[in-house]
């Protein structure tokens, strides 16, 4: 057991080195902008850049719409499948796994060819349409995570009894979903939402191919043209990802732990 523990420490130390050296190097590099001394100049330049503010704002907005769209699609479907159509579960699970099989670049390529200006559904003919298509594309990317989060949340509550109780009290379907089911799976939905946010905020492929002024293409552009700013942006992006994951962890502490009645 002694030897085992020694090797466990060795493996852990090697892993920690591989994961922390790039972070330390990036922090160090991002502070080298002023010759000879460490400074936060690169961060000042980045945060003061009007394009940073504009593209970051755009991506935050896209992420918010993606989350709303994802919730609207996933929550009713996951709820209804638990309640009435358990036979459909394998089909739905298969579909939610598809975005992991079909690369994002292929999905957006399909959009460009199917929803061009001359097609019956010309999403790409207008700016608003293209923005909508980007949000839709992001929602497909987030689908596996959103569905799994919501489904896990639903598993821990007794969907059937809650629904029947609400019905007896005279609630309609809209009331049941918004005032009974959603509050009960809110924590799961929020976990899915923060994960979606982390995925979407720096996304490059779809935004770039749809020519949207999003954060991902801006990052790529800065990377191709500047020296120190990219490192500062990498640290900012890491902090955002970290923030999202921490929020998920904090939320998971409030989530109900066990299934009341697995069905």
């Amino acid at each position, binding site marked *: 057991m002694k030897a085992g523990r020694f090797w466990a420490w060795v493996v852990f130390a090697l892993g920690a080195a591989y994961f922390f050296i790039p972070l330390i190097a990036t922090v160090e590099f991002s502070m080298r902008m002023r010759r000879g001394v460490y400074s936060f100049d690169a961060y000042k330049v980045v945060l003061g850049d009007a394009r940073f503010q504009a593209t970051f704002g755009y991506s935050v907005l896209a992420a918010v719409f993606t989350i709303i769209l994802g919730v609207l699609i996933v929550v009713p479907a996951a709820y209804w499948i638990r309640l009435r159509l358990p036979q459909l579960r394998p089909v739905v699970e298969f579909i939610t796994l598809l975005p992991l099989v079909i690369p994002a670049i292929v999905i957006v390529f*399909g959009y460009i060819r199917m929803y061009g200006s001359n097609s019956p559904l010309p999403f790409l003919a207008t700016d608003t349409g293209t923005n909508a298509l980007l949000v839709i594309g992001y929602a497909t990317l987030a689908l596996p995570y959103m569905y799994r989060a919501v489904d896990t949340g639903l598993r821990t509550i007794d969907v059937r009894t809650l629904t029947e109780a609400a019905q007896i009290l005279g609630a309609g379907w809209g009331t049941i979903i918004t005032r009974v089911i959603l509050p009960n799976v809110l924590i799961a939905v929020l976990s899915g939402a923060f994960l979606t946010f982390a995925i979407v905020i720096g996304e490059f492929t779809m935004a770039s191919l749809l020519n949207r002024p999003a954060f991902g293409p801006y990052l790529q552009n800065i990377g191709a043209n500047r020296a120190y700013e990219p490192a500062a942006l990498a640290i900012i992006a890491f902090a955002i990802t970290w923030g999202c994951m921490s929020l998920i962890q904090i939320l998971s502490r409030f989530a109900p732990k066990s299934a009341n009645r697995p069905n």
Partner: protein
Amino acid sequence: MTDLSLSNQAIAGKTVPPGEARALRLPTQWLGVAPFFIFAIMFLILPTLYLMLGAFQNDAGEFTFENIAALAQPSIVAAYWISIKVSLASSLIGAFAGLAIAIAIVRGGLPDWIRSATLTFSGVASNFAGVPLAFAFLATLGRLGLATVLLNTLFGLNIYAHGFNILSFWGLTLTYVYFQIPLMVVIIVPAIDGLKKEWGEAAATLGATMAQYWRMVVIPVIWPSFLGTVILLFANAFGAIATAYALTGSSLNIVPILLYAQIRGDVLHNAHLGYAIAFGMIVITGLANVFYIWFRTRSERWLK
């Protein structure tokens, strides 16, 4: 899709009472899942099918295998080959390193806080991909990166003089490993947790040595989820583009970058060849996932 409509009828037959209720209740039964299916069909399935069909059509819309055959040209084959190599190398390295770390934190007798800290960090790092990851590695192993400079000044080792380049196969692989290892850790830790303590005790009671316990109990139980995860990592790396594009521009010709250039500017001068490349990507990641699902169903038996 035929599958779907079949189950459709089966459900309708089962749940709807006979008589006039049929006309009234059938639509509401489907209303809840309708947005999901409409969304999935319009924005996930149809666009993909459109490309897959396009891969077998020429400009006049006639059926042909020409586009698929045209994939055999050297530059495209080279792109597929380097993509497969990078994905395979990064998934294998990521998988074994991730497994070692997972075993170390679960079974190695390390303090508890290390386990939870590693899992938290893994959650973050597995989602830290794309353009920022490329920046981090340029700052580390680029020509002026900290690791490059330190290795040179402290040990006199100039890795660029020894043929290393961040804009190369190994550079890209080393970068991909940064999100592959954490993904492996996140997925495989539950599998290792699933190894019951009783199995170790039973093996010990029967007089098994530590090596026998590992060879005859642990490895057979972990094996399917391990292999399944390797495949997931492979597909994960195969479809990724942002990191590679930000890291190497278009100097490293992997398939997603080739497809990206084709979508932007028709560099291959044949729109349907682009469809064929997309088709090839779906076939490779699709095959990978078929294996993944197969291994997963095998591994789930043990994790209940």
